[in-house]
């Protein structure tokens, strides 16, 4: 493996990180939105969301990315590979995050809401000041866990030709006829990236706990 190969792997790692972060940044709030629809029992939408989430959670990322990339052009939407990859991972992340947010919402003590109501707090404030800070803290470990799962399925976007870390390694292996070294470098990249998420979560939890007892 030459310097160029290491650079290609670094570029691939950059793509893996960019795609994953974008999908996390879009999928997490979307998941919250879906969870709120289910929590608020919005008539008509509730069942649709439940079905969609169940279907998406059962769908392999590879199948979904192929669907997004090949089916969208048939309805006149030409999407670049990268965008199709982000859209796919976002859909999956949205579905998983919906369940995580929903669990946090269901565990939320109702009496706090009643108290806020009694003080005449409007709905929006009730949510942003009372509910959100607490469910965000409760959901954090599960959300970070889901982020690491998302990074682990992100190589799926390689099947439509997005050159992320895994595909970069495959290409180097194909040209050098020695596939193992680039795969081991890619493996190290994933361990570092996922390890970073896990360490961040541990730190945030420690800080929250310290704040709780301060």
């Amino acid at each position, binding site marked *: 493996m030459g310097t160029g190969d290491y650079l290609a792997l670094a570029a691939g790692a950059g793509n893996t990180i960019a795609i994953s972060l974008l999908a996390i940044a879009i999928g997490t709030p979307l998941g919250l939105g879906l969870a709120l629809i289910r929590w608020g029992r919005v008539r008509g939408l509730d069942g649709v969301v439940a079905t969609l989430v*169940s*279907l998406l*959670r*059962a*769908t*392999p*990322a*590879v*199948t*979904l990315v*192929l*669907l997004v990339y*090949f*089916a969208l052009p*048939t*309805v006149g939407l030409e999407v670049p590979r990268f965008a199709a990859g982000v859209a796919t991972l976002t859909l999956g992340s949205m579905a998983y995050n919906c369940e995580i947010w929903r669990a946090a919402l269901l565990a939320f003590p109702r009496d706090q809401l009643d108290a806020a109501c009694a003080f005449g707090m409007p709905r929006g404030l009730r949510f942003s000041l009372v509910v959100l800070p607490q469910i965000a803290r409760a959901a954090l470990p599960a959300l970070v866990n889901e982020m*690491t799962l998302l*990074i*682990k*399925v*992100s*190589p*799926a976007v*390689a*099947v439509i030709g997005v050159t992320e870390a*895994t595909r970069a*390694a*495959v290409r180097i*292996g194909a040209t050098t006829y020695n*596939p*193992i070294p680039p*795969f081991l470098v*890619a*493996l190290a990249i*994933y*361990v570092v990236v*996922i*390890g970073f998420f896990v360490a961040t979560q541990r730190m945030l939890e420690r800080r929250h706990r310290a704040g709780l007892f301060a």
Partner: protein
Amino acid sequence: MIPHGIEVLWEQRDAMLAGLATTLAIAAASAACAGLLGLLLFALLISRIRAVALGLTWLIDLMRCVPFMLFCYLIYYGLPSFGIVIGNLMAGIIALTIYNAAYIAELLRGAFAALPREGIEAGQAFGFHGWRLLVRIILPPVLLSSVPMLGNQMVQIIKDSAFLVIIAVQELTFAANEIQATYYVPFASFVCAMLLYWGLCLAVEGGVRAVVAMAEVRR
């Protein structure tokens, strides 16, 4: 457009069903092997041989940081370098087995850690030790309490099996992709595949619920 897609799929139903059958066979074989290997790893994890348990913990943690697709490539391209020549299907099953065995061992260890110690101590007091302690005293409650998580892992195996399309294993996603490439019906073929995966996962969830209900009755 969509009625046409459904028509094509109906004509190609044999190819789709063959893909589904392959996915089912791969998932069942890998799940059985991963379950057995996971049990063995679990036994070593809780054994008194500290060095083995520590090394295994380290390996399992490492495995949980690796994307399945990368691991699949490593097995597929790596085993021949050690002189082990196998077909694509076999490589896929081996990759699924080893990868998921690590997760199963870890979830069994979690269930074991949550178990009250008294039962095990009582078993030891009655002279159970080693293999018999594991099989007669430890495993029954551990397995029973981890049924829902084992079900989740089964769903994971079914979903991971779609990754085998990259090493040209002719499973469900492969079949859907072949049909869409030949007849240009991407929407119908992939949605059909998604619905079939959904059916498999719902069946697993139903099975888990039935087992949990049965366990409740017997308790």
